[in-house]
């Protein structure tokens, strides 16, 4: 049987991947993907804990998170499309109208 620590380790690696992805990648779509990876890292945690603690609550939370992640992706992609239309670029560094 796979120990709980293995799930938590995978989830931690995924979370770190997402975190670093948001911080260093410059493409808006990859940033969005990294955020989704972070959410899924939390989902793995929730489902693994839920299984080992024999409490359904975690899986219910994970279901809600999946739904929200879908909503977030929809809004995010819509924003990317509007920005792209105006600027023909999805590079985060080119979002530079606002600075002091």
């Amino acid at each position, binding site marked *: 049987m796979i120990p709980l620590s293995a799930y938590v380790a995978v989830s931690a690696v995924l979370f770190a991947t997402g975190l670093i992805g948001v911080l260093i990648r410059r493409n808006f779509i990859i940033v969005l993907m990294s955020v989704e990876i972070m959410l899924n890292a939390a989902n793995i945690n929730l489902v693994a804990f839920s299984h080992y603690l024999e409490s359904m609550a975690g899986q219910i*939370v994970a279901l809600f998170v999946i739904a929200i992640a879908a909503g*977030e992706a929809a809004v995010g992609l819509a924003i990317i499309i509007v920005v792209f239309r105006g600027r023909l670029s999805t590079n985060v560094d080119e979002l530079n109208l606002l600075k002091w």
Partner: protein
Amino acid sequence: MTLPLTDLLAIFPELIIAATACLVLALDPITPAPRKGWLAWFSLGALAACFGITSLQMGVRTMAFSDLVIIDPYASFWKLLLYTVSGLTILLSMAYLKEERIHLTEYYGFLLLALSGMMVMVSAADLLTIYLGTELMSLSLYVLAGFKRADGRSLEASAKYFVLGAFSSGILLYGISLLFGVAGSTRLSAIASAVSARGLDDPALLLAMILLVVGFGFKIAVVPFHMWTPDVYEGAPTSVTAFMAVAAKAASFGAFLRVFLEGLGGLKANWHVLFLALCIATLALGNLVAIVQTNIKRMLAYSSIAHAGYALIGVVVAGQVTADSAVRSLGLSSVMLYLAIYALMTLGAFTVVALLRKGGLEGEAIEDFAGLAKRQPIAAFLMLVFMVSLAGIPPTAGFIGKFYLFMAAVKADLAWLAVLALLFAAVSAYYYLRVVMVMYMRDPQPSTGLAPHLVASPVLTVVLACALAGVLVLGLYPDPLVSLATQAVLALK
């Protein structure tokens, strides 16, 4: 499966707001253009109804949906504040959107959806509901921030807000998942008992706590998690900026205080130090960077960061384990008082900014205020009152807010923190009064030939009158609000 009627009745205000939001979104395409204003009035009517219901619920304390949701005076306090602020924002938007030629009534739908998310946040007794509320609020605000679709700056604000907002939600959610692993439940009460069983040094708990601090830190915009604030506040349509600066901050504070006091109350000794550091960093950076700003929306953004720093003083007092519980409650009630006062004065200031026009364009630079006192003495006087109140000078409400916070700090043996905050308040007077100086002492630049003026409209008068009355009346007679906040804090244990 059926939903019990008592549970549905408990969240009746949320249901009304969410239903109104959906109705506004659905009615928008079939409403003829000249009648679209009716939808805004319809939204206001729903807010007024909810205000009535929540005032009646003020003394009530019940749990609903098997303890996912709690209705207590604490939640009701925030809800009343949120209704007031949203109502004023809708009125302001009616004038602002007309001026900006944005004829999309979805705006009010998204505003109400954001509001219903905020209401869920403040009356959540479970981390799942808090997360859902936060996301509902944030997703609606991302859209609202980009509402001026023809303006690249607005879209950029929306994009930046989305990236950092989603990022912070991810961090918050990971913290929630760890807390679930520790406690076996996402109920705040279950987490509280797990915390007391595990003690102060449990590494998983500490990591989860830090992740929650980061996640909420982004939402309430404290240093070092503030970097999105100036850009988003500057780029977003001004009415949306006002709503974000006031309502989103109040709701995030409401959820954040409940999580840290009810759920993680056993870890006070740990988070107290963390918030002390955040508080000092926020006060210093917010106030110092605001000095060099030339755009008034950006200056107000840094000012809102600084005000989050002041509010954190009360949180630090509430987490001071050596102080007795009366002092800790005072710290907490002064945070609530401060945020309510901050809401009124900031909303007032943004209203003046939103409707200041210079030759058909928005006057956003502080220079655009030059000579306003000569052209429109009333508008200039209103801005004067809001600036004086933001600086915390008596007899305005801003002074009362700071007074209660500093008094709580002194009583909790944190007099040095109060002195430090007072020094930064003196710094803040410089940049607030600079706006006043520009309005009263300088003439408009003759080369442009465009005189600054405030767009006058009846709804605008109502908003400004409410904000002005709030700032002045609470400055002279704060007792009702103080007792409301005290009553609300008693519910939170």
